[in-house]
């Protein structure tokens, strides 16, 4: 499982794991569901058209072919749906008392894991734009670090971004305090 792969340091504690807001996956799955039901709606519309106006008569032996085609379509959209769900669930922020680990699952074979230590955190910024994000309380969180290689991490659609910002800032303050007292623990 994931935590065995990440290999936390001895004594490192996971403070929270954050996934994108449920509204993000809801919108994505709703669009997949719409695609899923497209053939059903098309068949219903065709069935409503009188046979004399309809070149594609549903009652003259096309049933097996239709069932085959519709099943193929529905199976493929289901696979797309599970693909979407997988990317949503495997995409997460892991905040520990020492670092932040950001896992970006872009596609099945496109996975990016970034990690930065809290003492390197320079700035953390929250952005909530739009009516729905404001009411449902989700937004973009940007973390800027002092790292030379990659110094900006951001993720869209995170729930309770202000709460998460406060948690990260609190953990950073505690980390800096403990490093001042025991500098050898870096």
């Amino acid at each position, binding site marked *: 499982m994931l935590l065995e*792969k990440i290999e936390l340091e001895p004594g490192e504690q996971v403070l929270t794991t954050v996934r994108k807001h449920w509204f993000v996956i809801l919108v994505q799955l709703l669009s997949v569901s719409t695609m899923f039901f497209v053939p059903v709606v098309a068949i219903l519309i065709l069935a409503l058209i009188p046979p004399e106006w309809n070149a594609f008569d549903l009652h003259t*032996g096309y049933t*097996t072919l239709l069932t085959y085609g519709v099943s193929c379509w529905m199976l493929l959209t289901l696979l797309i749906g599970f693909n979407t769900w*997988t990317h949503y669930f495997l995409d997460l922020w892991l905040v520990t008392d020492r670092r932040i680990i950001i896992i970006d699952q872009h596609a099945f074979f496109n996975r990016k894991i970034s990690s930065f230590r809290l003492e390197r955190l320079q700035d953390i910024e929250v952005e909530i734009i739009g009516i729905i994000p404001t009411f449902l309380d989700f937004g973009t969180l940007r973390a800027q670090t002092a790292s030379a290689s990659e110094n900006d991490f951001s993720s869209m659609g995170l729930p309770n971004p202000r709460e998460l910002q406060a948690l990260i800032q609190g953990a950073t303050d505690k980390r800096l305090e403990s490093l001042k007292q025991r500098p050898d623990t870096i």
Partner: protein
Amino acid sequence: MFGTTSVPIASLPLATGMQLGFFVMLGIYAIFTAILYYHWNTYADNRVVSRLTFVLYFLLTLPFMGVIGITAFTI
């Protein structure tokens, strides 16, 4: 009726075309299932959600795979 119908472009009997389509779908399904299993088994942080996802996945997809197979081989 369908056994003697041909796909105009390739002159392939419809039943053969559908059976070929079934094997293509079966291949796609098998590869996707393997990839899905690998990802959930390796990267998920919650075993309960992983199991639920797999139960739901097979409950929803296997009937469609069955229908595709039955229609392709009984036409």
